[in-house]
């Protein structure tokens, strides 16, 4: 399911004296089955952008083609869009409401009008994908679970709809190191087993560098950079100037550069950093 965005513009409170241009003339493509990272300072328009992709917001101008279908067209049913494109908001555990985990995860599939037995299947699969056991948690109240478990239930609720594109907005926000790793593993597993497109919005550059095939950089409502993680994080000064950080390994490399040490390739992960340093010292 490929996504093509052309000249997307969104203005809040258009025409009023305090109107704000949240998105300005954004065009980009997301290939089917890819893993894309979106980064940008707070207020750069990331949240607004992803809400357009699943039809929650309509642009003032521009088009969004999902597999050739223009979802900005008024005739397209929102239900169709939301079945194809799933969106997990920040702190998704705040949207849990049902008496049992099973019922909450079933909410999405129910809204899609799926038959009962298929819903049951979807719930089990989704819980399995997020690393929870249906037997253990299915009949428990979601509010009895730990923070990390609640978040996984909330994500399962979206995965149960089997979207071809899964958008996650800061899925690791507020989590401790272990829960953080668990969620990242979960996302990788979903990407692998469902073969879908993943769009990850995050402030954690290490995660973005490690997982993304392509990175989109937002700044003040515009998409200012696009490329592989290697290409994007190479432009260290530009990123720092926009108030963004570098992944730890790249950040360390910048420090070395200041000392006159130039590694051949820029490391994005700690493993790559070790490799590069080994090569540079000739310590093979």
């Amino acid at each position: 399911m490929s996504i093509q965005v052309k000249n997307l513009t969104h203005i809040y409170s258009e025409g009023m004296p305090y109107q704000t241009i949240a998105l300005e003339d954004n065009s980009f493509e997301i290939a089917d089955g890819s893993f894309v990272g979106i980064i940008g300072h707070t207020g750069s328009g990331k949240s607004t952008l992803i809400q357009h992709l699943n039809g929650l917001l309509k642009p003032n101008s521009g088009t969004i083609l999902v597999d050739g279908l223009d979802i900005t067209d008024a005739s397209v049913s929102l239900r169709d869009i939301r079945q194809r494109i799933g969106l997990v908001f920040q702190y998704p555990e705040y949207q849990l409401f049902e008496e049992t985990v099973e019922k909450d995860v079933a909410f999405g599939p129910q809204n899609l009008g799926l038959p009962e037995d298929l819903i049951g299947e979807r719930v089990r699969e989704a819980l399995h994908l997020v690393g929870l056991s249906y037997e253990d948690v299915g009949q428990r109240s979601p509010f009895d679970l730990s923070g990390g478990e609640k978040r996984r239930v909330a994500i399962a609720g979206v995965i149960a709809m089997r979207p071809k594109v899964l958008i996650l907005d800061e899925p690791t926000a507020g989590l401790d190191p272990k829960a953080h790793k668990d969620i990242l593993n979960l996302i990788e597993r979903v990407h692998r087993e469902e073969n879908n497109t993943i769009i990850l919005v995050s402030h954690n550059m290490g995660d973005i560098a490690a997982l993304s095939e392509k990175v989109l950089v937002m700044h003040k409502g515009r998409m200012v950079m696009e490329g592989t993680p290697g290409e994007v994080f190479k432009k260290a000064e530009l990123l720092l100037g926009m108030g963004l950080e570098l992944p730890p390994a790249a950040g360390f490399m910048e420090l070395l550069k200041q000392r006159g040490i130039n590694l051949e390739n820029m490391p994005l992960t700690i493993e790559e950093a070790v490799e590069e340093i080994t090569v540079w010292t000739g310590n093979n």
Partner: protein
Amino acid sequence: MIRDITLGQYYPGESKIHVLDPRVKIICTFAYIITLFLVRDFVGFAIAVGFLGLIIILAKVPLKFIFKGLKPIFFIIIFTFTVNMFMTKGEPLAEIGFLTITREGLYNAFFMGLRLILLIIGSSLLTLTTKPINLTDGIERLLSPFRKIGVPAHELAMMMTIALRFIPALLEETDKIMKAQMARGADFETGNLLRRAKSLIPLLVPLFISAFRIAQDLAMAMEARCYRGGDARTRMNAMRFHTRDALASLCMICFIALIVLQAYYL
């Protein structure tokens, strides 16, 4: 994104009315409303309308905002008008079916209607020219002396302060929850009344839980900052009575005197 919510209907400004002490404004508003019921005839009403008109001009609030406050009670005004018109006994003027319109009825209807309108406009002026937080402060200080007889002035004010603080936050939370559930295919719009009521559950349950969580966190934070109720609390913003407040009070007293004189002695 719900960013700048002005609560109640506060109309920002620095007019002579805006800067008055909220306690003076609250008392004057009550006084005005009470005097409305002392007025008996056209002349009296003319004075009342004139006085209100003067305040409106001084407050520099556009008329459109003033009349906004009348919209919700439009039907009540019509209802009051009609009931008084038909139900008052007196000299008959006209007959419609089995209902009689009397001269007294017409007068009553007109006066009652006008009273209601002036009452609403008068109260509106209070909320239009006073920030909710200052209103809360004013109410607290006015009720403070009655704490000795058990009026929980401070607690009421604290409740109002916290409500004002968190209403924008809760509205934003509602928006977020709605969007999250819509992303899961929830539909808050179609269907009959019953279905739409049911569809609110995925919105209301998380919202209530959020509200409880906020309350818990806030209570802990308040305790950590040594909050222990209203006793022995001081206030950074001392409310001071200025010359302009004395002047305003004087004007109000003159107005009341005029009305009373006109109604009973002239």
